[in-house]
């Protein structure tokens, strides 16, 4: 069982050591898996679905995950943990002029983007494999990848349509 304080630390750590709304997911997944959180991939999958349906920035899945793990306090903790690390941008803004023109800065960010792709790709693969046991579930995962990558369909429509298909298939 993870308490609210520890949850806050884990959320802040994931957000502070990552770039982008979903960049912290591999860190969070690894930390929660190390604490043997039961049914973790399902919890994260549910939180990702709520996060994609919510208005606001990418990354609000942390709020939903916080609620699933620690109730309303967990949700608030998740929101707070998302809001704090980006304040680093004030420091970045002060230092930016010194490093922006350097090729090293561009190279470092480029290699980091490859790393993030590999890390987030592996985490999403874990969510897909952990929740897929029949051909329809695999098709949903692969379909989600192809449609998101190719057609930029709004997540609300994708999740809604897939939910209806699931109800029709398994009833």
């Amino acid at each position: 069982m993870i308490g609210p304080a520890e949850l806050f630390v884990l959320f802040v750590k994931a957000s502070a050591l990552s770039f982008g709304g979903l960049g912290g997911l591999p860190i969070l997944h690894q930390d929660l898996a190390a604490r043997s959180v039961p049914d973790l991939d399902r919890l994260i999958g549910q939180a990702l679905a709520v996060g994609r349906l919510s208005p606001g920035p990418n990354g609000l899945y942390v709020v939903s995950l916080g609620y699933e793990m620690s109730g309303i306090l967990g949700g608030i903790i998740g929101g707070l943990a998302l809001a704090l690390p980006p304040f680093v941008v004030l420091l970045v803004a002060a230092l930016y002029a010194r490093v922006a023109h350097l090729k090293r800065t561009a190279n470092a960010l480029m290699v980091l983007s490859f790393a993030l792709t590999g890390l987030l790709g592996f985490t999403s693969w874990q969510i897909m494999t952990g929740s897929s046991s029949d051909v329809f579930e695999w098709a949903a995962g692969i379909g989600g990848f192809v449609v998101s990558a190719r057609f930029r369909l709004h997540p609300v429509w994708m999740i809604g349509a897939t939910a209806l298909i699931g109800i029709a298939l398994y009833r």
Partner: protein
Amino acid sequence: MAWAFTRIGLLSFGGGSASQLLMRKELVWKHGWLTDIEYNRIWQLSKLTVGIQQIGQVILYGQKLAGRRGIAVAVAGFMLPSVFLTIVMSIVLVAVIGNRYIEDALRLVIPLTGGMTMAIALQMWSPEVPRLPRHVLRLVGQGVAVLICSVLVGVVRLPVPLIMVAALTLGALLP
């Protein structure tokens, strides 16, 4: 300002591109608080922040418009309604879990979100279609780097922050 940022937070369904459009509409086109050049400069700068880039962007716009009070108003307006709605949606989801129909729906929705997240991972890399043989080599090199990071976290089980710091260091050392 509070109402403008609340509108941005509440109406930006669908992630980053929707937020950008709304933010530009409110701050540049509708209210004229920023020029296009100021908006773009802060947008580029915010890409270097940790965590959610859009929150960093909102912090800088708030600072530019009204100093510290502007930061507080902008972040609160942008985040609070979204966080509130996300908690409400989570409460509804948790309340209906166990319902047969919801369970059936989630059987497909959860792997779907895995696939959608994988597409976002690919967009972070945004590989270009190669036109010259040397571009193919570059693309293969990038693919190998992506694969190595996956193996390091999935097979070798290295801590994710360590891999990210190593990637940043390696990139900075490149000629």
